[in-house]
């Protein structure tokens, strides 16, 4: 195997991944990986990109910043991957970004991290990352706008006490300011909280602020615990979650083995940055479902030490799938001797690209985020479906 360029051999293009494959948020890393893996497997079976297979060099960071930094160093300096791909989380990515700047002479870019935070969208680090998904600002602004529209103006925030939570909190604050409102109440939890943990203190704090809706900025285990305790303590208001939460994992926790599952999920509304995987009329969704079924992708065996049952389909794996699809398109636009230095031009050449979800993707020097749209979903018959009417569902009676 001859190394022609960093991370590229005659037969492979190696992409570096550091994500959560362990801990309470492992579902996010695993599902994102599975979705991407389905598409890369498909491409590799078709002969790869100019005869080179796409290979993922993957490490587990457990959704913790320090391991993420160590993994990235290893990927950049020891493994010499071609680019970084599919990272998970704001606290992890925000620590990795300065490393990309430090090694900017190596032209290592981070592609499509699973976070909607601002640091990889703005100076001084925005030039080292490319995003596909809409931002948390867009998600929180959409949620706030819709709540305010149906006259639910007293909005409280439940958030993870870290950069991710702060990013979402800032989004809610900014969106409320646009309506002349401010955050009604706030409560936090520590990253890594499990579903078995209690969120009663947080619920009591928010209850005291008499909110008309709560926006949660967290991971599925803590957000599910909050939704459960909110219902149990009589906080009966819409509870919104951002796309990062991992909707299927959240739903699983709130329904499996719970006597009160319907009331736990009745007032949930989750924003998504990809369309529903139930919309089979959408070409990319159809393609995704077929490939997930055909290849049944599994997470790297050596990284998954704890029990995890993958989902047949999920919003997170669909996002991973779309990330991989666009990544392949970018790699195809490189010449036969792919160099990292060509990557930026290849990305900027993506103009009105049809990813198959009804929204054109474009990139440019001032546009480093491909998609802008936010979708809203609620639980119906034990699954998340698109929310059609906010007023009917959450309007004040």
């Amino acid at each position, binding site marked *: 195997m001859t190394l022609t360029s960093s991370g590229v051999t005659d037969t492979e293009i190696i992409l570096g991944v550091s994500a959560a494959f362990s801990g309470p948020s492992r579902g996010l890393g695993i599902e994102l990986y599975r979705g991407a893996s389905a598409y890369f497997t498909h491409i590799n079976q078709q002969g790869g990109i100019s005869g080179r297979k796409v290979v993922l060099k993957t490490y587990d960071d457990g959704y913790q910043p320090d391991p993420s930094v160590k993994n990235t160093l290893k990927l950049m300096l020891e493994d010499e991957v071609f680019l970084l791909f599919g990272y998970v989380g*704001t606290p992890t990515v925000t620590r990795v970004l300065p490393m990309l700047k430090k090694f900017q002479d190596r032209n290592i870019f981070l592609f499509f991290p699973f976070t909607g935070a*601002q640091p990889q969208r*703005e*100076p001084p680090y925005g030039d080292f990352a490319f995003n596909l998904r809409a931002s948390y600002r867009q998600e929180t602004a959409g949620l706030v706008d819709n709540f305010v529209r149906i006259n639910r103006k007293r909005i409280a925030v439940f958030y993870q006490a870290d*950069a991710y*939570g702060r990013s979402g909190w800032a989004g809610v604050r900014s969106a409320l300011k646009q309506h002349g409102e401010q955050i009604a109440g*706030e409560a936090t939890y520590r990253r890594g909280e499990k579903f078995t943990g209690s969120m009663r*203190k*947080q619920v009591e704090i928010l209850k005291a602020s008499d909110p008309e809706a709560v926006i949660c900025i967290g991971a599925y285990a803590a957000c599910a615990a909050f939704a459960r305790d909110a219902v149990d303590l009589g906080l009966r208001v819409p509870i919104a979650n951002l796309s990062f939460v991992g909707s299927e994992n959240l739903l699983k926790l709130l329904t499996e083995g719970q006597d009160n599952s319907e009331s736990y999920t009745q007032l949930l509304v989750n924003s998504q940055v990809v369309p529903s995987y139930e919309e089979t009329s959408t070409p990319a969704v159809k393609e995704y479902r077929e490939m997930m079924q055909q290849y049944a992708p599994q997470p790297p065996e050596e990284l998954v030490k704890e029990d995890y049952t993958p989902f047949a389909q999920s919003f997170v794996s669909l996002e991973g799938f779309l990330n991989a699809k666009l990544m392949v398109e970018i790699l195809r636009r490189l010449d036969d001797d792919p160099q990292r230095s060509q990557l930026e031009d290849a990305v900027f050449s993506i103009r009105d690209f049809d990813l198959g979800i009804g929204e054109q993707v474009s990139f440019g020097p001032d546009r480093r985020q491909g998609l802008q749209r936010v979708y809203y979903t609620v639980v119906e018959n034990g699954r998340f479906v698109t929310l059609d009417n906010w007023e009917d569902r959450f309007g004040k009676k």
Partner: protein
Amino acid sequence: MKIKKLFQKTRFGIFALFGMISLSTSALCIYTVDTHLSEEYENNSKNIAKTIADSSVDILLNRDLAALQSLIDQFVEIQSIKYIYITDESGEFLAHTFVPGIPEVIRTDDPFKTEAIERNLPGMGDFVEVGSPILAGIAGTVHVGMDTGLIALKIQRAIGRQVYLICIILVVGFFAAIWLVNLAANPLGDLLAYAVGRARGEDGASDDKLLSRDDEVGHLANLFFYVSEGKKSEQSDT
């Protein structure tokens, strides 16, 4: 014997002296360590608050609050720093590390305070909080809370180590002094016994050993010997 009593008094005196030295040294040590470490922790917190304040300017003016939160999260990993919060120029909380929420006592307090204050936060413990203005206060204030319980524990450990050392020195010093006193007391006891024996006109078995010593005891023994011998010859002459 009188010599025994004299040295018992000396031993007691040594013990009292060493005890006094140890107690006063320990008290001084406790005071010094406590004062210095407390000052050091407070200064560290002030420095951390100032570092965050200086680093925050660019973030507050140009970047997202997630970057600010990421910054303070790194500092709160330092031992004894228990919480950090940043308020803007209007007093609004921009970033903090509290879980499950900002304590009421902090929420309702003056957000521009920068002097060191002691706080008791229900359910969290006792803290010393210091503040540092961001851009001379026009961009906000950084507040850093130190766990006084943890600091007290660290100070106690430092003092404990020092007092432990002093106690070891006391015990070793005391026994060394006893040994040295005995070193002087035993020959003096022998000398006393010799002097009494000579006075009674007895010849002891250890006379030669005592008379052959090349120190003050030997000299005194020789003196007693000559005096008693002189008396003996005077008595035989008469």
